[in-house]
């Protein structure tokens, strides 16, 4: 991972007037138009650190895009990130590590023949948890990079939930390596019991639209694109 830390302020006056007043936007935030404009504005007055990666590596570029997406959508006025998948992965992984450490320590302290039953138990437990972790990551988590929630109040409490997965398509002779986003959006109320709207969207862009020849990510352009797609899916099924 290579990201040069240099404070970098953009000065785009046209977009800044909308972004500087997020409070005004949020009072009428249930109106999808305001949300879309908020997202599309990609507040340029925000101070961002420069992100520079090796632009020959699609993996590094994908990670940089994923991180930029998480940073953008986790803004207080946008979504609150839900860390369930990360927490489950951390919990399973660290449990496996502690089981392995405990089994190793026990096997070291106790003589071989006597230690066999406990070491067998530890080994079986470790393998089971690792298999569960792999299955979870493959089937349930999949390509998801961001899960966010948002609560707004307009006559009733409206909960919005967005799930974003991203994939990276490698380059072929006809098109450059590309980053593809796929979103799934649900809007509900009264504690998730009544569904107000649902939406799905996919969008793909080549990495060359966001990374310049040095490998620096144009975060504003990226955020504008992401904001556009998210706003689109939120607006698609408005009240």
């Amino acid at each position: 991972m290579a990201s040069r830390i240099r404070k970098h302020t953009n000065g785009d006056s046209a977009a800044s007037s909308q972004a500087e007043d997020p409070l005004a936007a949020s009072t009428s935030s249930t109106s999808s138009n305001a949300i879309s404009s908020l997202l599309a504005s990609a507040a340029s007055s925000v101070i961002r650190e420069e992100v520079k990666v090796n632009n020959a590596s699609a993996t590094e570029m994908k990670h940089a895009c994923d991180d930029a997406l998480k940073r953008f959508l986790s803004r207080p006025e946008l979504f609150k990130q839900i860390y369930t998948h990360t927490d489950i992965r951390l919990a399973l992984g660290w449990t496996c590590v502690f089981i392995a450490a405990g089994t190793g320590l026990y096997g070291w302290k106790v003589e071989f023949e006597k230690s066999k039953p406990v070491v067998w138990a530890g080994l079986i437990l470790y393998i089971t948890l690792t298999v569960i972790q792999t299955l979870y990551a493959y089937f349930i988590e999949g390509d998801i990079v961001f899960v966010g929630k948002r609560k707004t109040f307009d006559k009733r409490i409206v909960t919005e939930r967005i799930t974003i997965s991203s994939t990276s398509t490698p380059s072929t002779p006809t098109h450059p390596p590309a980053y593809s986003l796929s979103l799934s959006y649900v809007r509900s109320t009264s504690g998730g019991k009544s569904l107000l709207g649902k939406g799905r969207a996919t969008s793909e862009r080549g990495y060359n639209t966001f990374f310049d020849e040095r490998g620096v990510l144009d975060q504003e352009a990226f955020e504008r694109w992401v904001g556009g797609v998210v706003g689109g899916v939120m607006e698609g099924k408005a009240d």
Partner: protein
Amino acid sequence: MFAEEIRTFRRLGVRYVLLQILNFASVLASGLMMWKGLGLITNTESPIVVVLSGSMEPAFYRGDLLFLTNPPNQRYVNGDITVYKIPGADIPIVHRVLETHDVAVGGKKRGAVSAAPVARKQLLLTKGDNNNIDDLELYQGLEYLERKHIVGKVRGFLPYVGYVTIAMNDFPQLKYALLGGLGLLALFQRE
């Protein structure tokens, strides 16, 4: 040197740091579990050992890697190459079995030898191929080795590979450098 990485960590948060450390820790954990699993399957506490001395030349030279198993119900016969550890000595020794004796399994008639010799009650005498005398002096008072002293029987070997372990034991800095390098690599790289 690490200021940039530390700043990145602070920006990305606790969960990210935990995930990266988990990457490294889980590599170590899986290595350890594979070793323990191999030991359980082969029924020996140390399924892979390195030859340290030249007492088994020309069969095994210093630096060879040996693969051991210890089948619990199989008798050892003359000619088997065994690795054994005497309680009180810290390093295991790899030598060839010269003599085997069977002990009576204690029945109603004392002094009777059982018709089917039991593997678990064997007594063994060993000698290194390159030594002139047998191992009696190494047994620290015992006359014969018992099955419980045997770590395992050699099933196969790889020449020269063991020198890596010998180097890491003679120069512990190498071990820490390797581990440190692996750790840095795992911490600062993403899959």
